[in-house]
């Protein structure tokens, strides 16, 4: 039976060692996690879409953002512009424009959206999720869209 003080010291030392090991490898685990976790694209910027002159009212233009996001840019009959994501907010399928019904339709779960992106039926309507829209700007006769720029390479 060792003297109580020595036993206390060796126990405290063992505890400190174990705690340091756990802390050390834990830190490494956190570092590994941060390395693997993709960095979000936080930088946004204005990208060129088309020149206003050749963009006739009533037509649409597909646009792919640097992050891979698919966007439909449309010129309304009144001459204004709008840009909607064509990714259904429910589960990420691509919506299509149905001209006869004047609506966007998601083939995965029959979600429907009004021409301005508001959900009108199906799961997105129940959850109150509309198609995200993007800011547009006209400068010197050219149309620009504001989107997220590409995430950092390597950990994208």
């Amino acid at each position, binding site marked *: 039976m060792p003297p109580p003080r020595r036993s206390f010291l060796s126990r405290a030392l063992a505890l400190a060692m174990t705690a340091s090991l756990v802390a050390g490898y834990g830190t490494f685990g956190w570092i590994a996690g941060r*390395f693997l976790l993709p960095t979000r694209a936080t930088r946004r910027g204005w990208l060129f879409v088309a020149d206003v002159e050749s963009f006739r009212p009533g037509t649409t233009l597909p646009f792919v953002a640097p992050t891979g996001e698919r966007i439909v840019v449309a010129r309304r009959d009144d001459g204004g512009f709008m840009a909607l994501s064509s990714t259904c907010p429910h589960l990420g399928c691509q919506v299509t424009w149905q001209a006869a019904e004047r609506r966007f339709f998601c083939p995965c779960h029959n979600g429907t959206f009004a021409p301005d992106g508001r959900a009108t039926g199906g799961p997105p309507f129940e959850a109150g999720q509309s198609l995200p829209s993007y800011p547009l700007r006209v400068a010197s006769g050219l149309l620009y869209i504001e989107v997220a720029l590409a995430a*950092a390479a*390597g950990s994208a």
Partner: protein
Amino acid sequence: MGRLATFFRQRLPLDPARLRELTNEPVPHHLKHWWFCLGGTPAYLFVVMIVTGILLAFGYEATPTRAWESVRAITEQAAFGWFLRSLHRWAATLMVAAVVLHQMRVFFTGAYRRPRELNWLIGMGLLICTLMAGFTGYSLVYEQLSYWGATVAANLSDGIPWIGGLLRTFLLGGDGYNERTLSRFFVLHGAVLPVTMVALIALHVTLIRLHGIAEMRFRRDEGSAPRFFDFFPDHLLTELLIGLVLMIVLCVLASVFPVPMGPRADPLSTPEVIKPEWFFYVAFRWLKLWSERAALLSLGAIVALMAAWPFVDGWIRRRRPGSEASVFVGIVAVVAIVGLTVWEAVVAH
């Protein structure tokens, strides 16, 4: 807790007493000194290499157009990428050093002698795998050194009689450095060599267990009974302590001397001063001393002699019992290795 233990005991038919006997081999007393534990050091560093290597592989792209850029992104953009890459590189450096020191220790203590000749051979295999992993590893970065090192090495292997041309074609995936070369190096570095090394390390350790650790007897121990201590927990704690010190050393090295990015490989211009990694200085200087063919053949002969040394030594000792020839051979070898390395390190060409 009790039910969980019962669950596993019923499904893993292991006898705790036998398991304890298997894992708890007696360790000779001289292993209380850390410098006799240099075999565990490369094993520990190997685990570090595997963990950091897997992480780095998530960000690496093995094509000539993207390789350098992806390593740069790992180093400069990814969270903690510089730290992981520096850990990987420093662990590699320490691992080569530890493997060489371990081999020297085994050589000078005569631990390779009968019946342990086969384990020396496995160790030689591990040495060659370690050096090849080092070479393929720095080829992946696609710096100037990576490109020209790989080109020179491949053209050198072309000089090996009979199989040289085939070896070069196999290594480069073509007659010269091409867009498939990097993925070859990547597969060798990230799959073939590590898997081979895991198998060889398992064999290495199994043979140590089967033979028992060679006991060292010093002059002051003469007449006393052999002393042993338990593997578990005594020796395991020693190894853990060494592991802890290694991790601290690695973290300090990686933080104070992080690995930089060299200039991107340029197939159109060879740099003025081009040298391989330090652990190839010996071979590099040797190659400059002789004609290409003579240097290659002598290098091959030296490696073959190293591998066959336990048998050569056994033959010598049978004819002249008590001969210390191996000590002199060892001293000459160490002086030559250190001399050639320093020589290459201090001159430009």
